[in-house]
């Protein structure tokens, strides 16, 4: 195979050895912590008391995925020196801006397992379904995308085919995650973050020197447009940065992998964990994006004209064999650490939101053993589904961008529900549905370009700008500061939005989703008589696998066996009666 104009960068033997070392190591780690009888709560949140080192590593590793590395390189290649900043910085801020809300969520639901479970305790079934549904959709897309990235990498760098690569990656990830769930995911994340961040520390400087070092910035300057040379490129901001700023809170709220870590880390360590992960993610992704900037200066054309091929292509062409192996492990580590988190996220949603809460709402005690079985079956089903989607090879990242914008409709109703006693279930549900109804035609350019409609949409986008920045400030500084900053942001942005933003459907639709859900949710809640008692949430989201639960289940089974034997006796005596009658 000669995909890169050179023989394959890694031999079949080298790839098999690297995969054996990587997945062999992760399976060994997960076996070291495996218990014969896993605890259902630990399977989902590791007992809510993970320390700083593991949780910071896990949050960093989970948020860094293969697609984020490729996209940052792509951004550097397309938009020049500021491109990686406009990809990596806003992605990093997704981690930073969620932590104040995370502290509040832990305060009201210290033993929760999923965000949807907390929504069920706060509102009821419809808001839970909306959040759980969007979480599952996001995780399936992410899982599929990571399998595709793994298959493509193996096909590109070795003699193996795409589908062989996908199957090996899927089997490897499932193998080490299946038994211990989230505990295996976070522990192996530590090893994976060592591999990923360690590789970036080596590969970026190596790439810089192999491509020509400082001289490259002199000899290659003519390959860049003035916009690409500018650190303050408006092209980069409008096409890459702004849509990402709008998505900062949406991705964080719509993603169960973040929520799971918020519920798992020791409560007093949320802040240092998330700040460290913000810096770790940002520096890693911006750093690897520099490969795209260097490729632009060097005048390298991406294979098949697809910038997504640029990172493995440059690695294969310019790095020596040993560093190609390091690069290979970096990408495999990034996609595996996110894929195992997606599996753990989906299993916890199935265990908690599909089984646990539905049992509790009927006054029954969920059986922790049944929960574990449901969690493991969910992982297997999700892996098989993602394999099917990966084999279909449709553009999964476009779908993720679409879903990410869609999540904007959930942000205000979810956040307001944790702070404001007046938000009702109907306000939550109606506001999200109305926001989606306005989002979809805006996103697909169905709003006419003439008349009053585009002006109304742009007015909503102005409100959306205020909502996005206001919510970011609210988490750190409270309502007054949020209203001031949100108001100023809306006023300042208005002249730039009107008669201009209509050409940017994705950004406009995302801002409109924020604005509409906020306006409707506020309007429906402000006059409601609801005075929700937040203490109820903690009671409704307690752990499932405790000694008290075990005792209650034992009593229940004793009562059940007594009633069964009483039933048998009754049947026997009635049989006897029948016999008597027959006689």
């Amino acid at each position, binding site marked *: 195979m000669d995909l890169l104009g050179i023989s394959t960068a890694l031999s079949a033997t080298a790839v098999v050895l690297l995969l054996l070392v990587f997945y062999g190591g992760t399976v060994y780690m997960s076996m070291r*912590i495996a218990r014969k009888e896993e605890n259902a709560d630990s399977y989902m949140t*590791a007992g809510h008391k*993970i*320390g*700083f*080192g*593991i949780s*910071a*590593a896990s949050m*960093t590793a989970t948020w860094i995925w293969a697609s984020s590395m490729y996209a940052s390189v792509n951004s550097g290649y397309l938009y020049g*020196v500021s491109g990686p900043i406009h990809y990596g910085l806003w992605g990093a801020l997704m981690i930073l801006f969620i932590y104040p809300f995370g502290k509040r969520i832990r305060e009201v639901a210290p033993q929760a397992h999923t965000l949807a479970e907390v929504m069920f305790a706060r509102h009821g079934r419809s808001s839970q379904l909306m959040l759980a549904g969007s979480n599952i959709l996001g995780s399936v897309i992410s899982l599929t995308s990571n399998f595709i990235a793994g298959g493509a990498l193996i096909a590109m760098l070795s003699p193996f085919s795409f589908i062989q690569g996908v199957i090996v990656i899927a089997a490897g990830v499932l193998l080490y995650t299946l038994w211990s769930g989230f*505990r295996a995911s*976070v*522990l192996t994340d*530590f090893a994976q*973050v*060592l591999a990923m*961040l*360690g590789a*970036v*520390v*080596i590969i*970026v*400087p190596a790439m*810089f020197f192999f491509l020509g*070092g*400082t*001289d490259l*910035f*002199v000899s290659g300057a003519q390959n860049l447009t003035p916009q690409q*040379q500018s*650190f303050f490129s408006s092209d980069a901001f409008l096409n890459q940065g702004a849509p990402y700023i709008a998505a900062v809170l949406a991705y964080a709220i719509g993603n169960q992998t973040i929520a799971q870590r918020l519920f798992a880390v020791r409560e007093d360590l949320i802040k240092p964990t998330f700040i*460290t992960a913000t*810096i*770790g993610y940002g*520096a*890693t992704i*911006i*750093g690897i994006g*520099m490969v795209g*900037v*260097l490729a632009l200066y060097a005048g390298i054309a991406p294979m098949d004209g697809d910038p997504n091929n640029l990172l493995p292509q440059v690695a294969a062409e310019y790095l020596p064999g040993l560093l190609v192996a390091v690069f290979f492990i970096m990408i495999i580590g990034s996609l595996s650490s996110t894929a195992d988190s997606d599996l753990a996220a989906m299993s916890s949603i199935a265990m908690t939101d599909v089984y646990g809460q539905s049992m509790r709402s009927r006054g029954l005690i969920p059986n922790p053993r049944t929960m574990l079985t449901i969690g493991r079956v969910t992982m297997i089903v999700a892996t098989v589904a993602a394999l099917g989607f990966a084999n279909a090879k449709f553009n999964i990242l476009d779908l993720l961008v679409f879903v990410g914008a869609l999540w904007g409709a959930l942000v205000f109703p979810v956040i307001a529900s944790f702070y404001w006693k007046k938000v009702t279930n109907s306000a939550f549900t109606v506001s999200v549905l109305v926001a989606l109804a306005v989002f979809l035609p805006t996103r697909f350019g169905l709003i006419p370009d003439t008349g009053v409609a585009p002006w109304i949409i742009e007015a909503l986008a102005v409100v959306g700008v205020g909502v996005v920045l206001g919510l970011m400030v609210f988490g750190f500084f409270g309502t007054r500061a949020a209203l001031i900053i949100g108001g100023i942001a809306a006023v300042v942005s208005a002249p730039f939005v009107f008669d201009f933003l209509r050409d940017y459907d994705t950004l406009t639709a995302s801002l409109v989703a924020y604005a509409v859900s906020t306006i409707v949710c506020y309007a429906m809640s402000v006059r409601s008589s609801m005075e929700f008692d937040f203490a109820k949430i903690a009671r409704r989201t307690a752990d499932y696998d405790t000694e008290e639960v075990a005792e209650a289940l034992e009593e229940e089974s004793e009562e059940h066996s007594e009633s069964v034997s009483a039933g048998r006796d009754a049947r026997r005596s009635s049989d006897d009666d029948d016999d008597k009658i027959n006689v």
Partner: protein
Amino acid sequence: MSPILLTIYVLIWPVIVAGTLAVIVRGFVKEALEAKEEGVPII
């Protein structure tokens, strides 16, 4: 930007990554030692 500034701009990120990695590893080792002392699993 001058070539020297661009060089610093490209190479500063791996330095920040290395620093973050050191903080994470230090935290992990500290917790692993504490867990070992107390005779409890790290996770």
